[in-house]
């Protein structure tokens, strides 16, 4: 009998939840750094320069993050494909909205929308950064971050795509936050109602915050 976590349904759910927690933590951190861009150009540059050049962040946290995203994505798709195979014949009439909400049933859809957004986001910010550092060997420009960000948010189409993506992120998180606790085995009369409230708060505040930051940079450059 195999007791490896990755080989059972419950184990895979727990791993999914762990990768979800990790992404939730990363996203909050990313949000805080972005907030600096609204408050002060210098602080934003300073923090970004630190994140972009600190070896621990670059060579330990960044690979872990990349792995976390790819794992979450791969595992999400894998679980979904198994789930589809578990019901080969569909109901002629089905009313899933009678007993569950849309967000909980469409994590794959909202997840894929986030993934598409991540493609654009990597192209916008991550690839230029990698090119600067690892191809052109330029590690020491502590003031480039803010102008780069401003440049990207001059483009209305991009701002709109970003805003729409954050709606999908919010939908994904409105189920995902509390779901991760449940998958990890944490469900308690006393704390679960609070976790659900926190989840709703997180799923609204963070995406709305990102939208405001994007709009801020667009409108201040008009």
């Amino acid at each position, binding site marked *: 009998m195999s007791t490896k976590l990755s080989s*059972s349904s*419950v184990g895979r759910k727990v791993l999914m939840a762990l990768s979800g927690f990790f992404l939730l933590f990363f996203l909050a951190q990313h949000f805080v750094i972005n907030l600096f861009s609204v408050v002060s150009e210098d602080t934003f540059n300073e923090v970004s320069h630190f994140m972009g050049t600190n070896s621990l962040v670059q060579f330990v946290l960044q690979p872990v993050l990349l792995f976390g995203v790819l794992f979450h994505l791969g595992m999400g798709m894998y679980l979904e494909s198994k789930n589809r195979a*578990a*019901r080969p014949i569909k109901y002629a009439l089905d009313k899933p909205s009678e007993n569950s*909400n849309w967000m909980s049933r469409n994590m794959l859809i909202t997840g894929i929308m986030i993934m598409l957004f991540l493609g654009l986001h990597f192209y916008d910010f991550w690839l230029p950064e990698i090119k600067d550092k690892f191809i052109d060997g330029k590690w020491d420009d502590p003031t480039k971050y803010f102008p780069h960000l401003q440049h990207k948010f001059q483009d209305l189409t991009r701002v709109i795509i970003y805003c729409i993506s954050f709606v999908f992120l919010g939908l994904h998180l409105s189920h995902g936050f509390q779901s991760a606790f449940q998958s990890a085995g944490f469900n308690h009369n006393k704390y679960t109602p609070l976790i659900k409230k926190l989840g709703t708060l997180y799923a609204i505040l963070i995406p709305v915050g990102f939208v405001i930051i994007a709009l801020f940079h667009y409108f201040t450059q008009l």
Partner: protein
Amino acid sequence: MDLTLKVWRQKNREDKGGLETYKVTGISENSSFLEMLDVMNEHLIMEGTEPVAFDHDCREGICGSCSLYINGEAHGPDRKVTTCQLHMRMFEDGETIYVEPWRSASMPVVKDLIVDRSSFERIQQSGGFVSVNTSGNTQDANALPIPKMNADKAFDVAACIGCGACVATCKNSSAMLFVAAKVSQFAYLPQGQLERKQRVLNMVEQMDKEGFGNCTNTGACEVECPKSISIEYIAKMNREYLSASITSEN
């Protein structure tokens, strides 16, 4: 009440099957859904058509054999009931009602509305039992002190009748509510401690082997469960599983 029924008909496991339309008239709104199907079948017999096969036994909500996906919901539109306890007053006169079997790769249709639920039995056999001393000196169960909360929780989950509505309604066809109920009812009691670790490992393994899907915490199962078993116990099962798999020797 006069109704139009769209009923799934399928000769055997191999047959492709399809929906057939039947009319029933003069149904009392106080009759149960199964009684309505009985009336329909009598008409079919008189017409020389083969009656529709469906599962039922106790007709009082305790055996779990009456399945049926009615108008897009497991056990129909009412809550906390099985199909035998579903009353026709839940429907409108003249309504068209879809009657389908549970749909799950792990519960294939045997005939018409009857599905093969032996996958549940194999899961039960893999761990849903406790060892007792049969030497004749069996201890009085009441002699064992059990905290009230644990007794209540064990009782809540022991109410599971193995109907399969959780699987039928889950978009992933996941059996986790059922297995969680069967794992938890023993995990809370002193009698269940002997096999506690092995039980959850074996039952989850068998569940996976049967091909049930993975829970995505939509919560549909607890809404449709006739015995209102909460997904709190799925989290309980996950905890049991985690601790058993981390501490197991292999």
